[in-house]
């Protein structure tokens, strides 16, 4: 039993985090928002140069061959910065799916994606919209259970604005044929299921980062802003709001990390864990953002401070990759599955132990 991250795992996240501290400040986000764009090409190139696009891709496919535990802190760092570009979606979700496909066209696009030369968007059946389809070079679409891969110029899309200035949501249609298929239904279903688990856990990790950032901004403001002759952070009413948000964060964090570590188990408990991670993280991000707005007072309700970026990203991620209803149902199913047995514990003993005891 060891809950700690390895030094290298922390180091990878630290590299991303320090790049984003430099290149993804509140001022950078504002500049991008004012430009009407959702992505910044220079920052995306800098991120791609870190060589993380293949972090979850096996080495024989040209990746780093690492695991979800190696990426979860990176996703948290991206959330913390409210990063507009799709590092998490590409490196954590779409590229591992591409790498799992056994098809020459998938291989071709995989190599482009790994090289940072292409962005591929996924129309996963759990999401009614495709986020970032406009900026994608190719799209993965599901029809009749089969997975298709088509170039951007072969699809039509109807695109909506999101409350998050850096997300655009599209419904995509295309003429799909036998030639566009990259995975048959029997192969596609388990891959899409696996992809959903990864996307769920990494959305949760981003929400953890959002929540932490919201509290950091509020604490900094409360310690500085003076009313009635002293910093508002000295008042218990303000302290208790932030302490309550911090408790939510503290009890989302280990769930997210465990969910990342257990994803490979692919059983009812690991799926409930992923759902739990997302529910807890979304709730923490939401409460922390609302609390941060409250602590900032009227400033918090303006675009003057960065909190609104965090609020909006949390709202967007809350409904993506399985909404609250979807994930609560998965948790309840697990909680009710076998209440008479050993399902109550966080970790299971080996089957031999339990069989012996029975």
């Amino acid at each position, binding site marked *: 039993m060891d809950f700690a991250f390895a030094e290298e795992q922390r180091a990878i996240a630290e590299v991303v985090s320090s790049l984003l501290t430099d290149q993804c400040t509140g001022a950078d986000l504002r500049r991008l928002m004012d430009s009407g764009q959702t992505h910044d090409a220079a920052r995306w190139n800098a991120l791609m140069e870190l060589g993380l696009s293949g972090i979850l891709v096996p080495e024989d496919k040209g990746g780093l061959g690492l695991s979800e535990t190696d990426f979860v802190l990176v996703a948290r760092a991206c959330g913390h910065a409210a990063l507009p570009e799709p590092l998490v979606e590409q490196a954590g979700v779409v590229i591992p799916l591409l790498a799992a496909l056994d098809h020459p066209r998938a291989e071709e696009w995989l190599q482009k994606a790994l090289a940072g030369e292409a962005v591929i968007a996924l129309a996963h059946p759990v999401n009614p919209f495709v986020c970032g389809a406009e900026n994608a070079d190719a799209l993965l679409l599901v029809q009749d259970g089969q997975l298709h891969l088509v170039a951007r110029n072969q699809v039509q899309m109807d695109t909506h604005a999101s409350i998050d200035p850096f997300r655009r949501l599209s419904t995509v249609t295309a003429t799909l044929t036998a030639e566009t298929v990259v995975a048959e239904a029997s192969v596609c279903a388990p891959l899409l299921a696996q992809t959903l688990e990864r996307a769920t856990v990494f959305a949760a990790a981003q929400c953890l980062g959002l929540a932490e950032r919201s509290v950091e901004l509020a*604490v900094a403001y*409360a310690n500085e802003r003076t009313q009635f002759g002293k910093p508002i952070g000295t008042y218990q009413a303000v302290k*208790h709001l932030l*302490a309550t948000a911090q408790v939510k964060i503290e009890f989302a964090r280990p769930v997210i990390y465990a969910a990342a570590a257990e994803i490979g188990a692919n059983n009812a408990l690991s799926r409930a864990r992923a759902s739990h991670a997302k529910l807890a993280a979304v709730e923490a991000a939401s409460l922390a953002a609302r609390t941060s707005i409250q602590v900032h007072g009227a400033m918090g309700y303006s675009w003057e401070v960065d909190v609104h970026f965090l609020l909006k990203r949390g709202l967007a991620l809350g409904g993506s990759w399985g909404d609250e209803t979807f994930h609560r149902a998965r948790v309840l199913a697990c909680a009710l599955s076998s209440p008479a047995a050993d399902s*109550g514990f966080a970790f299971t003993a080996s089957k*031999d132990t339990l069989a012996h005891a029975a």
Partner: protein
Amino acid sequence: MQLSFTPEQDAFRLEVRQWLQNHVPQTRLPSFDTEAGFALHREWERTLAKGNFGMVTWPKDYGGRGLNLIEWLIFEEEYYRAGAPGRVNQNGIFLLGPTLMEFGTDAQKARFLPAMASGDEIWAQAWSEPQAGSDLAAVATTAVRDGDHYVLNGHKIWSSRAVFADWAFVLVRTEAGSQRHKGLSLVLMDLKIEGVTVNPIPQIDGEAGFAEIFLENARVPVANRLGDEGQGWHVCMATAGFERGLMLRSPARYQEAARKLSALYLEHQDRLDPAIGRDVAQAWMNAQAYALSIYSTACRLQAGGSIGAEASCNKIFWSEMDIALHQTALAILGPYAELAEPMANNHDWLGGYLFSLAGPIYAGSNEIQRNIIAERVLGMPRG
């Protein structure tokens, strides 16, 4: 990150499971806050001690098993899974025992630890006073030196288990005229000596779970002072760290409660608003989150880390989770919830609910804990 047990840990789990199967009383014991229940729980402590399952986290030198924290968590999971009785000895195991090991003299350890481990001497905590609750440094009980004794005068209150306990660890002011945190000492006092009057205080559930203690010229040997004279506050804060941190509330307790809640929900599901399922799922998640957090902390401590102000987050989380979980159970029970005694073989959800209401108060109120989080975790200014 490696979230699985070793074969040795699995083997230990099995050993605990089998021992408990053979020894846990078949019928539920009466509450340990009744005279008969207290005696039966003391007997259970003796049974545990004989099997060397009493003080599992204590070092072997003091009669324990020297379990590490992960093994302790496994033990607790099996303990609650088996439905074993509550620990009347809790103050000794988790609070005074570790404090004695850290601050006690060799003679004190030899005198008190074995009797604590065997269940022969059950301990109460006597810190709070009518005017010193959250503001513990306002303690006014005096201890005046008279030869090789202290003479104690004062009024202690909210002492859990004190009605039937044998000994108490008492926070007193040994320096006349001293203020606040200075001049305090901790003494170990026999509750049966002359000058000590223990009055039961009925708790919200009607049982005498705590007491007030009147001290009128009660004579306690100076040799029973724990730590140096004037070091009482320091010793107490070490004890409070044990209390708020890992040891007082093991995750298995809530996981077992969440498991029972799932079973209760399934039993009544046909007549329930499906929305209650949401609360059942939330209870399961809360219990899991708490367990994962404690496992995570245990790993950190075993790797040489320390537990600090974040223990205050634990205290808020478990106390609020406990209330929510029991509220959900009462919602499921509906018209049956108000029955003062549970129906045959049913879990005592009502008793659990009432007890859960004490959670945000004892071991440092949740308001105090939120101040600690704000000031020491988040770095906000003191008021």
